[in-house]
């Protein structure tokens, strides 16, 4: 651990934030075009965030503030561990369990701060978000478990590197098609995109966890959301879609994946939270288990493309 590691970490943070916020701005335009609107400018998302950070805000006590800081801190730490096109700020720290559980500390901070506001909408939103997590994470973790078993490593960058050099056929999503489908569906759940967005449902529970935030707290939440999106999309991209051999390839693939998810989600209705759990346990979970059994007992997809 040298100072340079921390500098690289900061660069990754900054780059991730700028990149993802730009993509979000672009996707707001895509969404608008699907809905036959003109849409805001591509840098509108930046304006929103910086405006929120400048405004005055309210607080409901120390936990309301502390939770927000802990959330952003946890998410930032996770971003630093994400390998981007083979580049890692801290080498050997990209273990998939570290990333997925460190992500949880950010979520816990956010949930804590939201519940600390004393608003019941926020607590309902958190309870839904956690239930949603129980739904999408188990099929996804089973597929990731299969990957670890197949490649004998839990390092995200190593798994990404193993898929490169064989073109599209090397991707885990193609080698293990059922697992790829599960990961793609789980990405909707992770990002809170329709049909799995009932925990923020603005018309029903007043945006759920976000209801009490304003000013700098809201700005923090925006930044947090962008960074969390970066982590989640990067994780799926690295594990199932081959990562990227260079930054440019990574960025293009990333943009395509995120935009695809966004476009599909725009034409989806919304699941109730228990319907979402049922769906994930009926379809993706079964797919994930079949994929796992195929890989573990038949060995298909591990080295079949040679």
């Amino acid at each position, binding site marked *: 651990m040298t100072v340079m590691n921390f500098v690289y970490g900061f660069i990754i943070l900054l780059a991730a934030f700028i990149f993802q916020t730009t993509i979000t701005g672009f996707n707001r335009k895509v969404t608008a075009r699907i809905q036959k609107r003109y849409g805001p400018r591509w840098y509108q998302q930046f304006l929103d965030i910086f405006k929120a950070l400048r405004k005055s805000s*309210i607080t*409901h006590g120390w936990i309301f503030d502390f939770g927000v800081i802990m959330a952003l801190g946890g998410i930032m730490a996770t971003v630093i561990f994400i390998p981007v096109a083979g580049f890692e700020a801290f080498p050997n720290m990209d273990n998939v369990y570290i990333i997925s559980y460190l992500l949880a500390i950010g979520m816990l901070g956010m949930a804590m701060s939201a519940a600390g506001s004393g608003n019941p909408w926020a607590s309902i939103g958190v309870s839904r978000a956690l239930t949603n997590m129980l739904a999408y994470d188990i099929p996804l973790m089973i597929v990731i478990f299969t990957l670890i078993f197949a490649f004998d490593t839990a390092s995200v960058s190593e798994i990404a590197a193993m898929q490169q050099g064989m073109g599209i056929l090397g991707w885990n999503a193609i080698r293990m098609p059922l697992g790829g489908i599960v990961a793609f569906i789980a990405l909707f759940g992770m990002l809170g995109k329709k049909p799995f967005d009932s925990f923020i449902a603005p018309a029903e529970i007043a945006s759920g966890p976000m209801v009490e935030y304003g000013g700098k707290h809201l700005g923090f939440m925006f930044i947090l959301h962008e960074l969390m999106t970066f982590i989640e999309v990067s994780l799926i991209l690295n594990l199932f879609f081959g990562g990227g051999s260079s930054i440019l390839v990574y960025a293009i693939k990333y943009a395509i994946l995120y935009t695809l998810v966004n476009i599909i989600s725009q034409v989806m209705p919304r699941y109730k939270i228990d319907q979402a759990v049922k769906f994930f346990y009926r379809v993706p979970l079964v797919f994930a288990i079949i994929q796992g059994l195929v890989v573990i007992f038949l060995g298909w997809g591990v080295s079949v493309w040679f």
Partner: protein
Amino acid sequence: MTFITVLITLLALSVVTYLVSLINNKLGAYFTIVTSLVTLLLLFLLKNSIGQLASISLFTFKLTTVGWYFSMVMVVVYFTSAFLNPFWMKKMIYPAAYNLFYLVSLIGTIGMFFARDFITLFIFWETVVWTSTFIIQMGKSRKSSYVYYVVSAIGSMVTLFAMMLVYQVSGTLEISVAFNALTGQPVLALIVFFTFLLAGLSKIGIFPFHVWLPMAHGSAPHTFSPVLSGGLVKMGAFIAYISVSAFAAYEAFSSSFTIMGIPAPIYIIMVLGAISIVVGTVMAIRQDDAKKLLAYSSVANGGYILIGILLFDQLAFAGGMLHLVSHAIASATAFITIAIVAHRTGTTKMSKLGGMIHKMPITYTVYLIAIISMAGIPPMGGFVSKWLILQGLADHGLLFIAAAAFFGSIGSFMYVFRPLSAVFLGQLAPKHENVKEASIMMQIPMYLLTIATLLIGVFPKIILKVIAGIQAEAGIQEIVMVGNTIVVANGVLDTFRVFVVFGYGFLIALVIFILRRKSRRVTLMDTYTSAEFVHTPELLHYSSNFYAPFERLTKKPYPVLNLYEKVSIKIKEIGHMAESLFSSPKPAVTIFWIIIVFAIFFLGGVL
């Protein structure tokens, strides 16, 4: 210093404690703290004399690393929860007896962990069961202590049967030797494996023997629940350890049918562990009583420990052993904080609490760190152990057990968050306006345990070194640490770095937060309510039915409870029948029995 001296010193101290408690029970309660501290120090000193043999009359002991490890965990839990004893003396029916049983059960556990022969093991095991039964009875309900005793008794009796069976075959009672006689007798080995393990399974709360746990933990005196969940449950893990080390289950079943390289009998027990993870998690999410919730979480975590220990390899075994410590500490901390909340407010029902953070910020912070560990989130102790277990499962390719482990670890986010939100966050009820923070005396154990959780999470080396010793003793591959990094076949983990980077992220966020404009403080009631006017804080507090959609999904989770209920009704009916036959006041019944007895007597004479 010999082990016998230690044992006798402790016994003498507990008698002194009892006598002092008879005069002044509060002073006696302070004696329990001192005695458990003395135990801790003496045990720590015993580390140098590992390998020592000792015996006194019938009992024989052997100091082993694994015994030392287990008893250290136990004593730490006993010592820290003893700090609560003085505050509960007024509520106990028999305070002096409570203090005595508290210490005797501690001595029982130590004796059991160092036992060299079956008889010592069994007698000390029963000592713990009996003393803890009497303590549980001093809590909320008597029924729970009956259930605890019945389940424990079934477990111990079946295990005793296994011990006698082994004795008959081998002719010796020494644990490390006796099992050798079973080699080459697969059927007998199978019977002994399942029967011997039963006491352990019932103690650690493995499905379907977990029913006593939520009842006993939920209704035991608040001071004893941390001990039950953090300490006594771990006795079951010790039995599991014996079954794979001294019994050498992997060698005994090496010729049997294997699943992913695991012999079928061991796999069956691991599946039971996986089921208890799922059942414990689902039931914990559904609870409204904070103590019951934590008790069910102990069921789930017991499953992790059992799976880890039974895998008996470099990775998952280390994970299971480490999880034993991290869960013991986290769970004891969580129970202690809930006990303090109950002490201040008089209830453990989450739907009746709320907003405690504004009155008890320290208790809240301690609970927060405990649950971060319990949910397996870095940088706390629980993460390291869960990471080792999950990596170990991936190494073996045990898909279904891993699926249960994932369910348990994501589900744990749900159940640990519920008390956090319902008890500590949200609206503060007006009747709790005058609730005070925990007193300094109560804060001491919380600080100690929190530091321990953090230390294990950031520097797991401290514990893993001992675990490597146990692995060496058991003859399996040791866990490897390079500096602060745990290096295993399929991954590396440097927890210190995770901690530092988290601190770095936190620092950046903090700086941005401080640099922005200061926010205006508003009251808790000053929230967005969609144009509703709500003036009662209780109505704005979201705590009952917290996971309503999930509870809808799992309305009928599993039928075991009903089955037990039916069986107990049948047993009662049979009992009533027997009672009516033998102790009826009617003379006709008496004459009937006299005739029967005479008939048997004469007929027996003829035949």
